[in-house]
């Protein structure tokens, strides 16, 4: 799989211009949607705002369905995508850390930068803490390395494990996502609206 730049469709001289343009567009959309507020992400946990859940799940199924159709039309080779190995134990542990971090701070790495960009102090503190965390992890890496490489299951995909085709899997995931949207709406109704 190659990018537009590596295929020569966009010359390398223009790469920075495109990077700034695409980054700016994503930032604008996220800010317009209110993602610079830490309460937005935390809302998914407390049940008063499921926007982030909707956005990310919708992005997931849009790209999944879109890529499968693009493969069908011969524009891309979906099945040549690199699938990184699954390291089950560090993945579980890392997910727990990330989840706690999301709830505690109300940011993910991307939204923290967005928040910092518009001058919010909590965004800057999150970025600073991330850098400290990376530094601590790097220093402790010799100790953490066995855990880092533990439980390698190889390049697994859920549809391979379940023995279903990617198309059936995409359809099932779409149904699950729609069901989650409906469930999120039910939970949202029971919660008091939070103004922020």
């Amino acid at each position, binding site marked *: 799989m190659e990018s537009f730049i590596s295929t020569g469709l966009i010359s390398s001289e223009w790469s920075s211009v495109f990077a700034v343009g695409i980054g700016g567009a994503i930032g604008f959309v996220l800010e317009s949607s209110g993602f610079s507020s830490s309460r937005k992400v935390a809302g998914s946990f407390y049940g008063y705002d499921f926007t982030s859940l909707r956005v990310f799940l919708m992005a997931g*199924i849009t790209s999944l*369905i879109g890529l*499968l*159709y693009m493969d*069908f039309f011969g524009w891309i080779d979906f*099945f040549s995508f690199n699938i990184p190995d699954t390291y089950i134990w560090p993945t579980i542990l890392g997910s727990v850390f990330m989840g706690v971090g999301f709830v505690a701070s109300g940011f993910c790495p991307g939204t923290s930068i967005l928040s910092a960009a518009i001058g919010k102090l909590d965004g800057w503190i999150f970025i600073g803490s991330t850098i400290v965390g990376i530094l601590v992890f790097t220093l402790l890496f010799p100790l953490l390395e066995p855990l880092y490489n533990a439980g390698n299951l190889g390049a697994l995909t859920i549809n*391979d494990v379940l023995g279903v*085709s*990617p*198309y*059936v899997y*995409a*359809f099932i995931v*779409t*149904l699950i*996502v*729609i069901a989650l*949207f*409906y469930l999120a*709406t039910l939970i949202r109704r029971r919660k008091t609206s939070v103004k922020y």
Partner: protein
Amino acid sequence: MKRSYYILSIVFIGIAFGLLFLPQYKAKQGVNPEILLQQLNDPTRIIGIDEVAERMITKDPSFILVDVRLSWDFEDFALPGAIHIPLAEIAIAAENGTLTHPHKDIVFYSNSDVTSNQARAIALQHSVKNTYVLEGGLNNWFTSIIMATPPAETATQVEHELYLFRKSVAVYFGMPLPNQTQGDIKAKAELIPLVKANDNKESIEAEGC
């Protein structure tokens, strides 16, 4: 829930439902990495120039010579009967069946044996069977056959016979004998059969030396 959410949900389910009617994807089995590594390092992948020369002259139908060099190299010089598939097109040739000949040996060659080994590696990844690499490539062909030098007088009989074989191969492919000019070669020289080391050992033992 807003009406637009219902519409969006129905649209997404409809589009995802359409995926179920696409032609079913069959996972490529590929080659097991351990087996691939074993095949890549298999010493029997190397085929000697003498064996290739003999098979070319006898017009052995069970092998295919594949020149994997660039177009201008192929146009400058190539082994007679070789087909040209540049390295960059090996994968395509393997996929479209050009290299699929279950009962034939496929011998890749290049100037040395680096590119030909790469070509063989690509072919193996596409499950092409019976692949070989010409030992030393065209450089070896040129130095050992075209420019074959006579062995020392004290050399073994095997070495002398190998030299004669290689000279006869060179003559067959149009090179003049030391005391000939190019114009003298009007008919194909009679090929001196290649005597393999084992065959010769047997004959020496038979003579009781």
